């Protein structure tokens, strides 16, 4: 038997530890070294879902209906799969719009409606109150169990444990939940404490489970084997009939939505989220937590039923009763602390969430409208805000306490919990619908919430009052005895669980009204704006300021912010705004729409979106643009996105086209330059012979008495120069023809040796004139090639006459060699002339490029011979190169393929 003071002392120690952790967490947060900036703490804080209802109530439910305690945890597991889609969007929206409660979220989505925010708050308070009292009841009941007092013997106020628990929890919530008014409403100390509590309750429950399975029994097989002997217990290992399946499905869906709709879950998962990416890990850590804390529920229930047959001990208290029955009092005490932590965690977060809602969405809007309070003239309202929140916490906790004193004894834990779940589920259509359906209207949301709430009251809350004696029993048979209106069997729908029954009707009413009214009513301008901000949270331009026109002075805005959040915080907020925008806010006189929007969001964090809008409107002239313009801007925005995507594609295409054009232009410019150069060179080359012809003609003309021998000589020069001129012009024309591709190509099969011999014969006179030797080094066999015979011969002749020109008369030796290669023939013309300097070798094939100084030494030839060779060979698909060591002769080699390429292929060859 545990002594009362031990239990009280342990509880006190535990609560002190909680205070210490929260204090430490807040201190670290103030120093900027957050302890909650990890996904593990985040996931653990979400486990505030598991309240004392889980801790004690699950066992109770499992004792009566087997696995049916599970849907309450399977639903959240299913929702966790979708967290990355749903919860992340909620977090993103809430951070953007500084949303701090579920009432604010819904009100903000539907045009920052004060009415809607108030309605959500009322539903939350009425719906959650039983849940809070459930926790208090659990603490006092289990305390009594521990002391083996008769449960329910509450005694006077001052001996009632739940009173003291409520007292200390209110203190905790006030200290760590409402420390200051902040735009973000992060309570790091509180979150740290909640995470710690999640660990404690998990370890405590698992410890009891391990004790039951391996301490009391001999493992799983032993426990279940004994249970199988009792048919009543063995029945607990089945899901049951079709109606049971219906309950299973409904409860799963219910708990699926409440994991994001319960005010406390919204608080920890959305408001207290410090980093969106934490959601990722929570997606599997939270289900893991749920698996672990539920693993031993059924074994404990089964063991309890076997140990305490005949209902001597309430199944809700098996977790404590089993260790106590086996004289493991320390374990029982630890389990009690676990249950206490489950209860306190829930109460703390829930009261903080409710106090924010009541303050921002119920009290402030009313106070701000009451002119006679002269709130508009108060210089600092942040103290008032804190006072309201603290008052709300005390009020909520004590309403919960009163509820448990007055009504609490008539229900099992699970039933009360599900009543609250059903209330919270009423938020789901407006909330989820609002995030994914732009067309949902304020009136639709209001109609849906009202319908759902009223049906919930009629089918769950009021009957529970009737059963507790607050209303006449006859209410359960339907008002005025009308059977069709029976609260637990509305319109004759019977045979279902009360909660399932209520959910079916309330969801039909809620969803039906929400969708129908939304479809039949119009959105106002601000609703349209908010709808697009919510639904398109992950897309594009998120500035609300686009929709606002008008002006306000910076001084007015600053004064407004200071009144609600205090001077120091206001200053910091403006400084941060200035830093991100690169302006000094204090130096401005008039605020732009962006700054007004910033102030509104800042205030929204402190007093809720609806009130913030009213307050900003009171100092700013002008308003949001009309509905028509809003539609235009929004349509514009979506069109702009589509256009910009098209533009991007276009501009990429254009870039490529431009690049091509630039290249083409470069080539054209280069060609143009070459052409100019060519023309100027040609004219220069033409002028030289012309000049000499003209000057000799003039001499002959001016001096008729010139002696005949000299005259003959001069005439000879004139004739030679004319020949040279003709040759030059012919070659220029030739080259132009080849390069332009207009030349006729007459492809025939020839023996390259014949071509070389003919060329040698044609140039024989030149060699004789200069007394030079020409040697032909031709193989006995050579492949035939298909080529234009005349052009090929022209190449060889050009090379031979070139060699003649540069060799010293009398000593010159020229060798022509033919080499048969695999894919063509190579012809090399070598001489023993002066050779070509290395620097000139690369340029020698260009037009009018001649070796030697053209200014001093009179070059022989036109400077076009090699250029023509190269052009011809390129056209035929061959190539030409030179090898030379200055002073030791030069060798020109060209390659010709077996089959000359067609003109088309030649056309495509680059560099022709």
């Amino acid at each position, binding site marked *: 038997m545990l002594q009362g003071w031990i239990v009280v002392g342990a509880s006190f120690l535990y609560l002190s530890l909680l205070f210490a952790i929260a204090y430490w967490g807040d201190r670290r*947060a103030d120093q*900027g070294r957050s302890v909650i900036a990890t996904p593990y703490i985040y996931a653990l804080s979400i486990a505030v879902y598991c309240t004392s209802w889980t801790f004690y109530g699950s066992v109770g439910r499992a004792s009566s209906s*087997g*696995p049916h305690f*599970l*849907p309450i945890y*399977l639903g959240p*597991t*299913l929702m*966790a*799969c*979708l967290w*990355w*889609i749903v919860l992340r969007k909620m977090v*993103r929206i809430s*951070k*953007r719009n*500084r949303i701090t409660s579920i009432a604010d979220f819904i009100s903000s989505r539907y045009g920052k409606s004060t009415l809607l925010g108030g309605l959500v708050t009322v539903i939350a308070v009425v719906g959650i109150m039983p849940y809070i009292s459930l926790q208090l009841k659990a603490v006092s009941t289990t305390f009594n169990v521990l002391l083996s007092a008769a449960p329910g013997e509450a005694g006077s106020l001052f001996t009632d444990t739940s009173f003291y628990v409520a007292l200390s929890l209110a203190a905790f919530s006030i200290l760590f939940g409402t420390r200051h008014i*902040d*735009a*973000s409403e*992060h309570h790091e100390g509180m979150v740290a404490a909640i995470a710690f509590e999640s660990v404690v309750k998990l370890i405590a429950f698992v410890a009891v489970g391990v004790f039951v399975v391996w301490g009391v029994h001999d493992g*799983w*097989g032993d426990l*279940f*084997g004994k249970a*199988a002997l009792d048919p009543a217990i*063995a029945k607990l*290992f*089945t*899901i*049951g009939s079709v109606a049971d*399946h219906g309950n*299973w*499905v409904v409860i*799963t869906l219910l708990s699926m939505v409440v994991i994001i709709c319960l005010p406390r879950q919204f608080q920890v998962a959305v408001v207290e989220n*410090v*980093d*969106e*990416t934490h959601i*990722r*890990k929570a*997606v*599997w850590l939270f*289900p*893991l937590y*749920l*698996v672990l804390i539920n*693993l031993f529920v*059924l074994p404990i229930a089964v063991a309890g039923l076997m140990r305490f047959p005949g209902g001597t001990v309430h199944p809700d208290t098996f977790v404590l009763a089993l260790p106590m029955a086996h004289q493991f009092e320390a374990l029982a005490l630890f389990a009690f602390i676990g249950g206490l932590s489950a209860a306190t965690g829930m109460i703390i977060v829930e009261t903080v969430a409710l106090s924010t809602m009541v303050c921002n969405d119920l009290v402030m809007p009313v106070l701000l409208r009451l002119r006679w309070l002269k709130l508009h003239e108060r210089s600092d309202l942040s103290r008032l805000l804190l006072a309201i929140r603290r008052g709300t916490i005390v009020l909520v906790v004590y309403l919960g306490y009163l509820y448990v004193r007055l009504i609490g004894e008539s229900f099992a834990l699970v039933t009360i919990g599900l009543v609250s779940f059903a209330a919270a589920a009423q938020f789901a259509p407006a909330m989820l619908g609002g995030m994914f359906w732009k067309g949902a209207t304020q009136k639709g949301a209001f109609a849906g919430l009202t319908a759902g709430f009223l049906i919930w009251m009629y089918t769950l809350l009021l009957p529970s009052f009737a059963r507790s004696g607050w209303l006449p029993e006859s209410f359960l048979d339907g008002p005025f005895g009308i059977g069709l209106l029976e609260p637990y069997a509305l319109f004759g729908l019977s045979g279902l669980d009360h909660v399932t029954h209520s959910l079916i009707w309330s969801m039909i009413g809620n969803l039906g009204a929400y969708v129908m009214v939304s479809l039949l009513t119009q959105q106002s301008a601000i609703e349209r704006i908010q709808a697009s901000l919510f639904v398109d949270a*992950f897309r594009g331009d998120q500035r609300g300021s686009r929709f606002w026109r008008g002006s306000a002075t910076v001084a007015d805005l600053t004064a407004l912010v200071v009144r609600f959040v205090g001077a120091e915080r206001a200053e910091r907020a403006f400084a*941060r705004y200035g830093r*991100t925008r690169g302006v000094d806010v204090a130096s401005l006189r008039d605020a732009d729409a962006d700054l007004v929007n910033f102030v509104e969001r800042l205030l929204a*964090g402190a007093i809720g979106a609806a009130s913030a809008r009213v307050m900003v409107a009171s100092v700013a002239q002008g308003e949001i643009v009309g509905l028509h313009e809003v539609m235009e801007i929004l349509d514009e925005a979506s069109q702009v996105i589509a256009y910009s995507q098209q533009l991007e594609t276009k501009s990429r295409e254009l870039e490529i086209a431009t690049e091509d054009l630039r290249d083409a232009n470069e080539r054209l410019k280069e060609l143009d330059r070459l052409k100019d150069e060519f023309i100027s060179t040609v004219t220069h080359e033409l002028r030289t012979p012309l000049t000499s012809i003209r000057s000799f003609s003039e001499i002959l003309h001016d001096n008729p008495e010139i002696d005949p021998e000299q005259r003959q000589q001069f005439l000879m020069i004139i004739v030679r120069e004319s020949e040279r001129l003709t040759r030059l012009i012919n070659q220029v024309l030739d080259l132009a023809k080849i390069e332009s591709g207009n030349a006729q190509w007459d492809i025939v099969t020839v023996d390259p040796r014949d071509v070389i011999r003919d060329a040698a014969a044609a140039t024989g006179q030149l060699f004789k004139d200069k007394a030079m030797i020409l040697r032909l080094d031709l193989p006995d066999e050579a492949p035939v090639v298909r080529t234009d015979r005349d052009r090929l011969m022209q190449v060889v002749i050009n090379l031979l006459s070139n060699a003649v020109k540069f060799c010293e008369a009398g000593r010159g030796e020229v060798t022509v060699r033919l080499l048969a290669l695999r894919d063509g023939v190579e012809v090399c013309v070598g001489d023993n002339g002066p050779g070509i300097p290395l620097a000139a070798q690369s340029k020698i094939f260009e037009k009018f490029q001649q070796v030697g100084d053209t200014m001093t030494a009179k070059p022989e030839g036109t400077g076009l011979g090699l250029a023509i060779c190269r052009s011809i060979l390129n056209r035929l698909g061959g190539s030409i190169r030179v090898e030379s060591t200055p002073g030791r002769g030069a060798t020109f080699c060209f390659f010709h393929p077996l089959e000359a390429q067609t003109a088309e292929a030649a056309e495509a060859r680059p560099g022709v």
Partner: protein
Amino acid sequence: MARPPHAHRGLRLARPSGLTERLGAAFLLGLVLFMPPLLAVFGQGGWLAGIPVAFLYLFGAWIALTLVLALIIERAPPDEAPLPPDEPAER
């Protein structure tokens, strides 16, 4: 002629579906596992190695789903679009 070993692999090179699709699939898996009719199949009673089939099935499926979630999350690349810096975390 021998086909190069990687020739048909191109079919499998389609863009791997994103985190959202995978988690959506996990959700559907959960629905199938925890709802009738599969539930009804395993909820009829019966024993396996001394442990009730319903208990074994529900927790087995639950743990398996959690594992699947863990695999999906931990193998996915880091989030591509975190909250833009324009919105500083308020403190």
